[in-house]
């Protein structure tokens, strides 16, 4: 069966520090991968998505970047965190396109102080 792992669960970082959040999927091949961010009490903002290794589409032109070095690995990074980067970061995957449902990781609560 397929599983998605996302870590860490919580993270407290100072402003200006770097960030690396990792997400891995098991039990499937060539998944579509997604990074979402959710501010407290708000909706799900799509940050990046990837349909294959090395293919990244960015939806938010901020100080965040994403990479997909392996088929089932998706990494969210920042060189210098801002206060506004605080939020709940969710990784998700699904099989290809069409009517397939999304499966989410358990999320990372990031606090930038």
């Amino acid at each position: 069966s397929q599983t998605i792992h996302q870590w860490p669960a919580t993270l407290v970082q100072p402003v200006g520090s770097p960030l690396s959040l990792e997400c891995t999927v098991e039990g499937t091949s060539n998944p579509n991968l997604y990074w979402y961010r959710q501010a407290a009490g708000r909706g799900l903002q799509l940050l990046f998505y990837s349909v294959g290794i090395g293919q990244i589409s960015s939806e938010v032109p901020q100080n965040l970047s994403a990479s997909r070095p392996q088929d089932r690995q998706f990494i969210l990074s920042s060189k210098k965190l801002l206060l506004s980067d605080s939020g709940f970061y969710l990784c998700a995957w699904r099989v290809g396109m069409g009517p397939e449902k999304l499966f989410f990781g358990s999320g990372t609560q990031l606090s930038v102080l």
Partner: protein
Amino acid sequence: GQQVMQIPQYQHVQEGEDFTTYCNSSTTLSNIQWYKQRPGGHPVFLIQLVKSGEVKKQKRLTFQFGEAKKNSSLHITATQTTDVGTYFCMNTGFQKLVFGTGTRLLVSP
């Protein structure tokens, strides 16, 4: 670009009352999926609607897809405290998956 709005943003009901959230799109939806996110948790898939006018039921939850495939609704009959959470709709069929703005439901016992 694709915009999917949900109303209301927030609703507080007494246990036993009904609840409805509406999902409205500026463009025709391919398929619509509904997700529920419990407080502190991650979104979990509830159901998918594909056909124009489709109605599906899951116990106390009724999902409907509009005839023009530009709107959808989720109705909960006789809410329970376990229904607390945020409900999101999402248009599928594209690589870029954008969620609706969400409706947060609070149920008081």
